[in-house]
């Protein structure tokens, strides 16, 4: 009986995902498309939870639905409200594209139906066998930060390069119109709670679903709320601190890798016995880095004193060079 109920649930999920994805993709109104995309992200988070992927559910809800949606909404402010009609393209081309997509779907569906890979457990059993030596007890964290730490290092580098490209494109766009006292009041309560939740997610990632990326996204949402609400006596963003935080994640990661090379002659082979501590250190730096990166991505550019940090004048050089 419960098998049929689960089958019904899965069927509803699949159809709902298709419908939401279709509506989000084919909508003409920009804001409607973004709102539907946020809803799609949340439904996808539910799907991850259904498929025994709680880490992914947390990350999708925070990053995929929350930060992505906020980013798109912020970027849509100075765009046109409606997309032009797609009759800009000739009818034949549109027909071909529709046919191509349908054909691709049929091909992929048939390939999956007849040839879906049988579950192969070699990697999973290896991970389970090495898990006690990895320093953490959450297998996803162990894979991310111990067995495949190099991939995570490169991921942090990709995030940093994307943020450098965004920062190079121009100054921070001005925030939205002042949102009023209600949002400021809510932010006053939410920010300490969000910081606590981020710290909790970071700590708990070693033995339960959680980890650096989810914590970084929650911290980024706290910073974005601060950007949006303009509390009184709010300190200006310190560009030097921001720059330091951006590179902190990669710096600590590479530093740990190089230091462990001194002991082990392998890059990123953690010193045995200190695995858990090193993973926590790397994760903390990565959380701060990702929070700074996502906030800068939302703000859309560098804060006002970014370049002044570079071109600092020494006190008496101005008079001497004149």
């Amino acid at each position, binding site marked *: 009986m419960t098998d049929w109920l689960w089958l019904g649930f899965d069927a509803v999920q699949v159809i709902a995902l298709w419908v939401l994805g279709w509506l*989000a993709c084919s909508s003409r109104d920009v804001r409607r498309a973004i709102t539907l995309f946020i809803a799609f992200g949340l439904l996808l988070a539910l799907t991850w939870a259904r498929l025994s*992927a709680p880490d*992914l559910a947390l990350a999708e809800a925070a990053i995929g639905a929350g930060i992505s949606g906020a980013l798109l909404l912020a970027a*849509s402010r100075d765009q046109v409200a409606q997309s032009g009609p797609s009759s800009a393209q000739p009818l034949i081309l549109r027909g071909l594209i529709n046919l191509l997509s349908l054909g691709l779907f049929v091909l992929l569906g048939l390939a999956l139906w007849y040839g879906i890979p049988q579950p192969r457990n070699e990697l999973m059993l290896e991970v389970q066998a090495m898990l006690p030596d990895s320093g953490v007890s959450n297998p996803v964290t162990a*894979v991310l930060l111990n067995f495949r730490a190099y991939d995570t290092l490169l991921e942090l580098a990709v995030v940093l390069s*994307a943020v450098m490209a965004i920062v190079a494109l121009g100054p921070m766009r001005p925030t939205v119109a002042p949102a009023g006292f209600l949002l400021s009041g809510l932010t006053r309560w939410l920010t300490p709670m969000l910081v606590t939740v981020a710290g909790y997610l970071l700590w708990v990632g070693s033995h339960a679903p959680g980890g650096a990326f989810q914590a970084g996204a929650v911290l980024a949402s706290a910073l974005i709320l601060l950007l949006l609400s303009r509390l009184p006596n709010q300190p200006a963003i310190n560009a030097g601190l921001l720059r330091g935080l951006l590179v902190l994640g990669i710096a600590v990661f590479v530093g740990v890798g190089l230091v462990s090379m001194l002991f082990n002659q392998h890059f990123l082979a953690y010193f045995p016995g200190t695995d858990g501590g090193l993973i926590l250190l790397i994760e903390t730096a990565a959380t701060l880095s990702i929070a700074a*990166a*996502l906030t800068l991505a939302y703000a859309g550019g560098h804060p006002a004193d970014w370049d002044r940090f570079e071109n600092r004048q020494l006190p008496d050089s101005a008079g001497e060079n004149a």
Partner: protein
Amino acid sequence: MIDQTLMYGICGAGLFAIGLRATLLQSLLLLRVLALNVCGAGVFLLFVAIAYRGPAQAADPVPHALVLTGIVVAVSAMAMAVALGRRLSQLEKDSG
């Protein structure tokens, strides 16, 4: 009997096709990037569906780690694409 892996795998394939169609047909850059993200979501769904091992057993953690990396990279790439698009439209407005 259709099992979850097959069902969600086909769902992912459908999402990929939907996203691909919209990427090619939409005219605004923002909506194209959004559709590309839906493509990515379809691919992630296929990964996680293959990693699923049933309600009794823990799932395979290696595809989960890959998809987690993928989610973060997809957001950064989307942020950069959207910033480039915004700068482009700003330049067009200034020059045109």
